[in-house]
């Protein structure tokens, strides 16, 4: 007995010592000085990228960007009424001087106002040009030069969008910012790509006539890239101070933000949650970035997703567990992304993906976000093959249901599609089976 007491007396503190995490995981400091951003002016020489030729033509990259690219207006947006209101709600001051805003609406942090005023200029995607501006046009230019980002590779092109459009450890639109008045982010690479006023010409290796499966590739790559970015952001959020945890922007906006008028749809939601083994009143982890990877991803990825989903359903999810699972899932998606870039998308595979989406009326019933992702996938996949006329009509019908879910006169950046009715969308979805 005495032995037991003595050993417990010594053992317990010792056990607690072992249970305490070691503090030896200090990372080596970053010694390199990051390359300097020089601003769009140095790219805008007439003989280089400001040829003033046809929009999108070679030599007129800057001309195209400054003329029609919304990124060129990103900084100016910080002066509009919405931005002024956001900044007021954040405690006053000027949005165009707020580093949080400039991280994405300007050229990054800690730069002079003259450069910030460019908006999202060349170097936000192509990399800070200090070390490569005077060499990148020379024959034999080393694409690994410090700062240069090689956007020819589709994966890194997608990742360059994700930094701001999904977020990363230095840039994010969190719930505090949304509550102050910023629209939520809802990025889908293939759709944005299709609508983007491109300032580059297709190179031979991605010419659409040569690569008829490019639309499917863009969609698959984009889904993996945005889900990867969203998972890394989730992990970053979980690893940070608990002052911002749990991060409400991780949840489906509509799961909380609805008035209480429509009782039957709320009860249906509760029933769906119970059917999935959840409890009524839990906050479901958001679907936007993850609904497709969860449908099309590997078994290993789905297991990680299930673990994250379970943990996120707790009122205060255990941050360590979430971070670990999210990083692991992000690693799996990184591999998926590399594979997706080089893969060929034969008609058979495109058909299989189409059917996978079309069969999921349960996903369409989950809400507008999930349904919209199904639509975007079907639209990209349908554009891959020779499109039969009726597909276009079906896609338009789906689009009408989705847009029609907003109340008349709504600003879709801010308003939620409260009138979404899955019963209208599901029959259209079925047509793609």
């Amino acid at each position, binding site marked *: 007995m005495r032995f037991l007491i003595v050993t417990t007396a010594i053992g317990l503190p010792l056990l607690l010592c072992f249970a305490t995490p070691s503090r030896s995981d200090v990372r080596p400091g970053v010694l390199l000085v990051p390359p300097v951003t020089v601003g769009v002016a140095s790219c805008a020489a007439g003989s280089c990228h400001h040829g003033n030729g046809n929009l999108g033509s070679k030599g007129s990259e800057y001309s195209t960007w400054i003329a029609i690219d919304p990124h060129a207006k990103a900084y100016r947006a910080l002066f509009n009424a919405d931005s002024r209101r956001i900044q007021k709600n*954040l405690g006053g001051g000027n949005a165009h001087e707020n580093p949080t805003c400039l991280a994405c609406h300007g050229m990054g942090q800690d730069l002079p106002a003259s450069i910030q005023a460019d908006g999202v200029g060349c170097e936000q995607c192509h990399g800070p040009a200090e070390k490569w501006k005077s060499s990148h046009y020379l024959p034999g230019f080393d694409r690994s030069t410090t700062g240069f980002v090689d956007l020819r590779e589709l994966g890194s092109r997608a990742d360059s969008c994700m930094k701001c459009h999904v977020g990363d450890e230095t840039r994010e639109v969190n719930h505090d910012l949304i509550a102050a008045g910023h629209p939520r982010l809802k990025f889908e690479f293939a759709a944005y790509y299709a609508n983007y006023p491109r300032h580059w010409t297709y190179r031979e290796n991605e010419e659409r006539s040569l690569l008829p499966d490019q639309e499917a590739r863009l969609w698959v790559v984009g889904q993996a890239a945005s889900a990867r970015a969203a998972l890394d952001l989730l992990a970053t959020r979980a690893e940070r101070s608990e002052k911002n945890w749990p991060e409400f922007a991780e949840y489906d906006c509509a799961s909380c933000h609805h008035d209480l008028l429509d009782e039957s749809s709320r009860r249906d939601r509760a029933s769906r949650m119970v059917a999935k083994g959840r409890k009524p009143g839990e906050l479901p982890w958001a679907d936007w970035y993850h609904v497709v990877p969860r449908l099309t991803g590997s078994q290993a990825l789905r297991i990680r997703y299930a673990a994250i989903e379970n943990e996120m359903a707790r009122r205060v999810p255990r941050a360590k567990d979430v971070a670990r699972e999210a990083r692991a899932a992000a690693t799996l998606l990184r591999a998926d992304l590399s594979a997706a870039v080089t893969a060929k998308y034969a008609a058979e595979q495109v058909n299989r993906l189409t059917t996978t989406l079309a069969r999921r009326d349960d996903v369409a019933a989950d809400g507008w976000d999930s349904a919209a992702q199904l639509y975007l996938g079907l639209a990209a996949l349908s554009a891959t093959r020779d499109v039969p006329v009726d597909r276009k009509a079906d896609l338009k019908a789906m689009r009408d249901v989705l847009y029609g879910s907003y109340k008349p006169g709504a600003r879709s950046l801010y308003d*939620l599609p409260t009138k979404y009715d899955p019963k209208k969308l599901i029959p259209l979805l079925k047509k793609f089976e």
Partner: protein
Amino acid sequence: MSFIMRWKWAGPAVVVWLLLGWLGSPHVRAQKDKELAGDVYPTPVEPTTASKLYYGVAACQGGSCHDGKPPVSWVDGKQVNVRCDELIRWKKYDKHDNAFLSLQSPRGKRMGQLLGYDPDPKTWKTCLTCHAVWIGDDKLEKASKEVNFKVEEGVNCVACHGHYEEWVPSHSILVTARKFRPLSRSEKWSKYGMIDLKDPLKRAELCASCHVGNMAQEKFVTHEMYAAGHPPLPSFELATFSNEMPRHWQLLREKSPALQKEIGLSPGELEETKLLLIGAAVALRDNMRLLQADAVSNHVKNGDGLDIAHFDCYACHHDLKADSWRLKRGYDKNRKPGRVGLRPWSVELVKLAIAADEKTASTRSAEYEKLVADLNKVFDSRPYGNPTEVAAAAKKLDKFAHELALSLSSPKRIFKVDDTTRLLKAIPTIYEPATKLYDYDSARQISWAHEILKKELVRIRIPGEVQEDNSNLVAVDVELKGINDLLRLRLPRKSTGESLSSEYQTTLERISKWDPFRARSVFASFK
């Protein structure tokens, strides 16, 4: 250290882990949660000589005094001191009578399914603590059934008047009533177990236990229950809720002068004013106790956040619209966008209760504003608030509200016309309804207070009044029509089961359409 030595640690380690595992088991957890809740809720005082027994409604029915048949004569020629139609009003109008039936309604059944409950609502303890009487003791339940206790009777007579054996026959049988009637209100409780509901503090505590919540009595509408279909619990104003049941008792001012003297009403005393103010203090106090009990519970300590039911429902539950009044309103300079605060209504009427005592009003008011600001701060400090700091801040407000309630409920504290007039006039100054923006529930609290004070002044000015003079009240109702249309100050009366749903639906519509900017013009009519 040798290999053998290392294994010596295994024994104690196993013991420690087993111990930790046992401490974490659900049974121990629930027990510890209850103990922690006990820290927040003082141990209730039990009657010294009465023993527990739950009579059914039948005990008060049929040929007795509460069923519309006043006895011809009563003890020693004294007047019967009740209105004698209590049960008739109860059966006809009072929703408490339907409390259990609502569990069997389609909504109730659906809730049960979604919450994973057993099909028989008689087993739903978390519901029955408020929707009926939960005895929770087999022997006592068996004995109670012999005196006609039926869980189907919902919130029955003894749920409020006292679930004790002695007072029921003692007050109703002529022979024993002779001895019972002359007793003081406190003796009727301590010796016989009849709860003194004429004491505003006792009544406030009793009503608030369900209408606000009481963790020690396991009365708490969780967010999970709301999500499964429980209608939003409205804000709680004691004087109004008492009237709206509708009252099955007389206010003391409605009784004869002899009874007023016997039961204890000073000449010129305004009892509803007192009830309103004490109710306000108790609603906040018990809300703070609910919050503390949850915050210190083990599951929250182990990392779960506070139950979402504590938070401002409509901070999240509104449609997102670009032209929303919320965006127009912005945020108070001390609040943080994106964080969810406490359900706001319970802090409002306390300001009026503080103003009741002119001497202490300014110091108390400053202290109160600071305590509320401190609580808001720790709610905002992280999503779902910081439970430990919330518990500490709530404890201070609990103490503040408790002391306020005690000072107001002293029998010496008598409110007269001058007090009520002053408080009525103070409402525009305290609440600045023409400029400040209020949520639906808070606006309703303020409006109810305004109405209670205004009507009590109208009523008391009728000399020698026994019956209400309706013409004066009608005039007040006409004046308050705009506010009533906006906030529906009248509460629904008894109806059968699910048809109350239409009532919820119109309430939800009013909340959904609530626009505090537009409401200001209606409030400007407060004079």
